[in-house]
């Protein structure tokens, strides 16, 4: 694994999709008027005959994808996460999930990574998709995972929701990183507290773990790129080896990763104090940039450190997180 500050790359998903589609002729690419923002301008250039512009009409786009999938195609449907899950929810359920068709819904700009206001922030997409039977839900953390996840999800017989960051994508893992749709990974070990993270919160969890370890707290970090089906065995193993658990998700704490972990612990009768970091049942208003939203709504590295510190009843004051490096090229809401 690399050390921060992580290098970033552009369009790893777009490149991986073109490569995959060149090998598999049944792959189609659908867009809902956010082509460049979803990195699929690359697909449009490389394979225009398999590129379908559905316009800004998500319900129809998902319904069409269902029809295409029934006739043997493998449609990848692209828009922002909000519009991929909220607008066409009934179509996702009836035209795709109930018949368990291999449609891939790819939603960009997760959680409060968008300063575009509540209408553009997918803070509930994981919860919505988790609630739908037959759906697989993937929320990856870096460019390496994106490259690995993409071929992997083509083998899932039913529908998949893939949640992707937009813009500069960090490279956290080494090239030999192994990705599995069936297993979460312990990437740092320790026996006091477990930080369980998905997607954009993994880098914050790793930064918090470094500070906590320096302060003498044994910190385990569990990466959970697949929120559904959850690798319950690894989650239980991780939780049973520590005194307390903190989950971190760029999403509301209701119905996402934190809920999935809580359900797993409760179901197994494993009692561990648990705190869920994420949006505390609120919409996120009023920002020029994503970092200010992460600070204001308690999704920063310091929030993770403070939460772990308090939860363990550690003495004195919690260590201070190093200031986050400024991220170049912050994108606009669109």
């Amino acid at each position, binding site marked *: 694994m690399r050390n921060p500050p992580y290098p970033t790359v552009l369009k790893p998903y777009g490149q991986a999709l073109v490569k995959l589609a060149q090998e598999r002729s049944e792959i189609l690419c659908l867009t809902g008027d956010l082509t460049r923002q979803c990195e699929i301008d690359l697909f449009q250039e490389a394979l225009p005959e398999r590129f379908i*512009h559905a316009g*800004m*009409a998500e319900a*129809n786009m998902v319904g069409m994808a269902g029809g295409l999938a029934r006739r043997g195609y493998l449609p990848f449907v692209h828009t922002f996460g909000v519009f991929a899950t*909220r607008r066409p929810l009934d179509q996702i359920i009836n035209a795709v999930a109930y018949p368990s068709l291999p449609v891939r819904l790819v939603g960009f700009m997760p959680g409060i990574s968008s300063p575009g*206001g509540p*209408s553009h922030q997918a803070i509930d997409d994981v919860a919505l998709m988790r609630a739908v039977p037959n759906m697989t839900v993937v929320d990856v953390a870096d460019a390496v995972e994106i490259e690995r996840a993409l071929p992997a999800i083509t083998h899932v017989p039913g529908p998949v929701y893939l949640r992707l960051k937009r813009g500069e994508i960090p490279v956290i893992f080494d090239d030999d990183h192994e990705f599995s749709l069936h297993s979460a990974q312990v990437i740092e070990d320790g026996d006091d507290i477990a930080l369980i993270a998905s997607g954009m919160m993994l880098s914050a969890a790793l930064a918090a773990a470094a500070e906590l370890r320096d302060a003498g707290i044994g910190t385990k970090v569990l990466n959970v790129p697949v929120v559904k089906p959850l690798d319950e065995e690894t989650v239980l193993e991780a939780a049973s080896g520590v005194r307390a658990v903190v989950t971190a998700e760029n999403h509301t704490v209701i119905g996402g990763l934190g809920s999935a972990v809580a359900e797993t612990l409760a179901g197994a009768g494993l009692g561990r104090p648990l705190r869920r970091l994420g949006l505390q049942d609120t919409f996120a*208003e009023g920002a020029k940039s994503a970092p*200010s939203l992460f600070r204001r709504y308690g999704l920063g590295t310091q929030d993770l450190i403070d939460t772990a510190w308090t939860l363990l009843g550690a003495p004195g004051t919690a260590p201070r997180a190093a200031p986050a490096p400024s991220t170049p090229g912050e994108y*606009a809401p669109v």
Partner: protein
Amino acid sequence: MTVLPLAADAARFADRIRLRSLRMIAPHGFGYLGQALSSAEIIASLYAGPYRPARDDLVCSPGHYMIAFYAAAAEAGLLDEQELATYGHDGSALEAIGTERSPAVDLTCGSLGQGLSGAVGFALAHRLAAEPQARVFSLVSDGELEEGQVWEAAMFAAHHQLGSLTVLLDANDSQVDGQLSSITTIEPIADKWRSFGWTAFDVDGHDVNALEDALATAVEDPRPAIVVGRTSTVHGLAALPEGADGHFIKLPEDVAEAATAELEARLA
């Protein structure tokens, strides 16, 4: 104190919307300026014409257009102009994409295609409350016509003869991926609405006289009415580069300065 402009001032009011919008965007270096440039005369004609803020409801269906409504409201004395300087900054209620905190309108939504249904709700509410004088004006963008919900609202409004409802459609042929006409054929726009039972006008959306005439007739018609304004996202600013992105214009400092000078000279 509300100071509404005289009808004759509509063209000037439109350029004031442009200038105020430009000043909101310039510190950011990019933003939704194209929306203000294309809708300036449409919104100015509304303020100079039939819209009465205390009596009527105003809906901005595409939340990305809120910049033009912030500008118009400040121009009409309905919004403190100091607030415009906070546009798009941390903690401001004047978000780039409209939210529930947005001033200047009764309803907006950043998720496109939903505003007309809200406007229909307002019109129904006025009917139920026996407020025959109250009118509902809704700005809708042509891109929103790709969303099915708009047509559900259109059918309902005509079926229920919601004559107090007037839609102003900004037909600027622009969406994120490029020209609307290259992605989905929405023409013939006016005939589509007529076939749904609306009275429809199709005019040059930068011609304030044509807009005001259409609006005056529209509000008298017992049917719901739509005024389709044909517009351009770079209208009224020669300083913008050829082929500027209509949905999200990049505005480097030198271009912003030239554009400001151009508008200030015209308004002098």
